[in-house]
């Protein structure tokens, strides 16, 4: 059997490089986190707005929320279908999500305090997102630790592989 693949290993890796680029991973995580934070921020402001709003303001809030949700969907699609997020990336992404949740909640709480209304529901929604982001961060750390432990076990079993 003399037939061989046309692509060498190096060429194959080069073909895979775009899917593995750090820039694409950062873009995907940023789209998801910023989109979700923006959607929650816009929707909460819209929902907690005191007094009746004119039709145009409703439309503006709806468009802004939909725009942010579209970015959330795009980021989610990238992360689940297109961009591989390895264990260390997941830890970083989870902390970014947590930071965005805390910042968005703090921003919304500040607006609620300024308006003097809606602080409790804002904190409840924000707390939910912070808790979800924290759970993802714990899971990401756990998975990474599990892989590191397995790597050390396998390296100890095969010392030649440590170089």
């Amino acid at each position, binding site marked *: 059997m003399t037939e061989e*693949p046309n692509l060498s290993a190096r060429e194959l890796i080069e073909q*895979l490089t775009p899917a593995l680029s750090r820039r694409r991973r950062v873009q995907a995580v940023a789209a998801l986190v910023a989109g979700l934070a923006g959607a929650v921020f816009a929707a909460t402001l819209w929902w907690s707005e005191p007094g009746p709003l004119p039709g145009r303001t409703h439309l503006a809030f709806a468009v802004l929320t939909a725009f942010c949700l579209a970015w959330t969907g795009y980021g989610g699609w990238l992360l689940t*279908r297109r961009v591989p997020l390895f264990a260390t990336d*997941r830890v970083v992404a989870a902390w970014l999500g947590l930071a965005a949740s805390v910042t968005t909640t703090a921003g919304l709480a500040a607006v609620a305090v300024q308006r003097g209304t809606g602080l409790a529901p804002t904190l409840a929604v924000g707390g939910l997102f912070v808790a979800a982001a924290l759970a993802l961060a714990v899971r990401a750390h756990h998975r*990474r630790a599990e*892989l590191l432990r397995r*790597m050390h076990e396998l390296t100890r079993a*095969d010392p030649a592989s440590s170089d």
Partner: protein
Amino acid sequence: MTDELLVVRAQLGERAALAELVARWRVPVWTYVRRMLDAERADDVTQEIWLAVVRGLPRLREPGAFAPWLFTIARRSVTERLRGEYARAWEEPATDEAVTEDAVEAMVDRAALVSLLSGLPAPEREILVLFYLEDLSVEECARICRIPAGTVKSRLNRARRLLREHLEEKGYRP
């Protein structure tokens, strides 16, 4: 370094481990694809498979079972191209017969096997490639093809019988 260690390191985000994994499995994957498809499509499908592998690698839960997982992905891509051929293949009953050794192995070396494969139906060709050319076990073949181990064995026996008939047509005698 074992495949499992390479997979774990790649899952942690180590690019060198991923590159080593690709280099190690590049030819076996291509061999499988090439035996199932023509040369024109083999390179494109191989690239598609590796892209799917890279995208799915972080979600692989059993790093020790990398080979069956890899060939499951490869098979999915190949099956999409051979949908027509697979649809024509009939469903044979799962039997628990043993994989019998026969004269085919004595008559045919790997190179000759490769040249004869193209004449077989896709399911039989696939099982021969996985079992003989990729050296996977019956259990791994069953997992990759999503069929019971008994069906793998009966399909292997049928494939060997077909091969024997092809060989005899060409004038080989045990």
